[in-house]
């Protein structure tokens, strides 16, 4: 299989009144699989709502680099691999 596609950041909240928290990231070949992987990987809580977004959709505001890119431009924020 050629590569695992791209990295998606995962956000979730337990109650409607809660704010979304960043719970992790998954690598997936497409958005459909990213949704499945996120739901099944970060199943530590009974989430009211979960959402995913491609990591490269996030734009930097006050820092030179966009978030979730701890290890440099290619990115190495935690994914399921490193949990």
């Amino acid at each position, binding site marked *: 299989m050629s590569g695992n596609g791209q990295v998606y950041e995962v956000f979730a909240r337990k109650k409607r009144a809660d704010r979304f928290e960043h719970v992790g990231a998954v690598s997936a*070949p*497409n958005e459909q699989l990213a949704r*499945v*992987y996120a739901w099944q990987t970060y199943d530590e809580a009974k989430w009211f709502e979960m959402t995913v977004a491609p990591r490269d959709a996030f734009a930097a505001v006050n820092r030179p680099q966009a978030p979730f890119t701890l290890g440099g431009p290619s990115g190495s924020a935690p994914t*399921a*691999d490193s949990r």
Partner: protein
Amino acid sequence: MTESGFRSAEDLPEGVSEHLGDLILALADNKRLLGIRYSDWLLGAPSVEAGIACSAMAQDEWGHARILYAMLRDFGHDPTALEHERGAGEYHSSELLDRDVASWEEFLALNFLWDTALSVQFEMLAESRYEPIHYKVRKLLDEERFHFDHGQGWTARLLSAEGGRQALTGAFGAAWNACLCWFGAEDDPLIGTLAAHGIVRRDAAGARARWLEQVGPLAAETGLAREADSVWASTREPVWEGYLARRRRAAEGGPDEDSLARVRGDRNRELLMD
């Protein structure tokens, strides 16, 4: 149509109870076996995330099978005997699940085509006149949504690569007839009776059409389905030869020895002390 429901198998009209018991047993056995096939890919899947998904799907299937076996108590079965004491010839599971899955594309034929075929049959039971199944089916279908997304997402991914498309065409072609037959022939005694009494919502052709609506758009890319006037149809006619309506499979036989030992939990039971 206002029809009264049935609160237990005892209330079902004559002949219906046996057919419904057989259908629930077929669903339970298929899920138990499918869970094993899923669990075999925890480590061999194309990515860590896919492995986690296989693990979650395996757990779902085993949970569903457990619930279904327990339901069969209402039909006069002993769930423990069903789960642990049957021989291969007594399993009502598809021939697709008789042995190990050799490749990721064969896995996808089970995950996308077969698992969806099972879920469609559950959809048919969601508004069944047999009421004890309602709540269970709803929860089960909620979980199955992710199985469908996984199967569809990976099928789409493989179809986008030349080698993947070719491999999928072979694997889907090999599983296709079993899926068509699962819903039953026009004169299928089991599905026919259940549909006539409102135990399942649609007859064999109706359920098959619903399945084709779900898998058709991607299966079309392997030449197995086509759309005409917004209706999805199979490009192949089902071959019924040898099909056993009661056991919902194409031939006698059953899971191979290794699979059987695993579904029954033979080794684990050796450790039990009474």
